[in-house]
């Protein structure tokens, strides 16, 4: 399963970003192998429409789950259309790998 997570850096040790559309990086993590792809977020500097643009990226990367702090209305509508599970409320003091591990632990 592919999990997308908003991050402040390009590694699994980076801290989670609480912002969705304006985070620095998206990490697309394969939950079986824990291999990941880091995508820097072009939307960080965008004047408007950063959320929907980020949603499009997550959808195109084929993620099934999104872990983040908060998703805005417009992005949420797009993500739900693609049946992506949104897990929000993550705090920025958490490391990316810990956030993923705790999600996987809760799930199983």
């Amino acid at each position, binding site marked *: 399963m592919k999990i997308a997570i908003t991050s402040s850096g390009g590694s699994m040790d980076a801290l989670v970003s609480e912002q969705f559309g304006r985070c620095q990086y998206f990490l697309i993590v394969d939950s079986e192998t824990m291999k990941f792809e880091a995508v820097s977020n072009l939307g960080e500097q*965008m004047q*408007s*429409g*950063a959320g*929907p*643009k980020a*949603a*499009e990226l997550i*959808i*195109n990367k084929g993620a099934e789950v999104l872990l983040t702090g908060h998703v805005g209305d*417009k992005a949420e*509508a*797009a993500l739900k*259309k*693609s049946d992506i599970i949104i897990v929000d409320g993550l705090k920025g003091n958490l490391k990316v790998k810990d956030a993923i591990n705790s999600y996987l632990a809760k799930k199983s």
Partner: protein
Amino acid sequence: MIISIASGKGGTGKTTVATSLASVNPGSVYLDCDVEEPNGHILLHPQFHVEVPTTKSLPEIDYSKCTYCGKCAQVCEFHALINLGSEIFLIEELCHGCGACEYLCPEKAITEKSKTIGIVREGFSVLNNIEFYDGVLNIGEASASPVIKDVKKKIQENKLNIIDSPPGTSCLMVEAVRDSDFCILVTESSPFGLHDLRLAIEVLQILKIPFGVVINKYEKLYTELENYLNEVKINVLMKIPFDKRIAEDYSNGKMPDVFLTVLNEEFKNIIKKIHALVAVDHINTTLH
């Protein structure tokens, strides 16, 4: 002649100045372009006789032709379209109706549909002999520019047109003041008034619109505003004193008595001053 009334800061008295100017100039045309909360009608008491809906264009996708190539989402400057692979998802609030998606769709699968986003009201103020127009944006709509554009279609070239602009220095203010012969910037004697005035001045300089300043709620002790205006040589058209009676009348939906009596001549003179300033500006631009 088109005179717009703008400000950086909200609540400095744009509508007060605009409605007063209109009322001392019978036969003028009043255009309330502050379409998010138009309130010129509260002071000018027009009788409305027509309401015309304003629409904006949105893309409509013909799925029998769409191949989900994603070109439309790619070219959308405002990220209003998202290619979900099985659907092209439109976020209506972000769409500016520019038509780029329709123009560039290789399958010609996109057509325009229109959506009502507000109304333009037409009326007449018998009391002041003023033609009155205003725009009202529907609650929840994000883009007000099309409504402002529709209000401005009512401009009548050979009359005095007074445009009440939205506050701030964003797209809406630009849309309202664009093509004016002159802009009156209403400010107040406060650091906030000065700060936002400077932003508004920057906009007008870029748009190359001549302007002057009206200082409302004038306070002699606050010298920074006037020091700045002197320094950059900006014309002060009028100073309106801080007077509780003005606020009281205004709050009761009345044109302030002080404006119609003590300050009446000064208001009438504003238009004369503007005519002179526009003429000077015209000479300067033709010489350079």
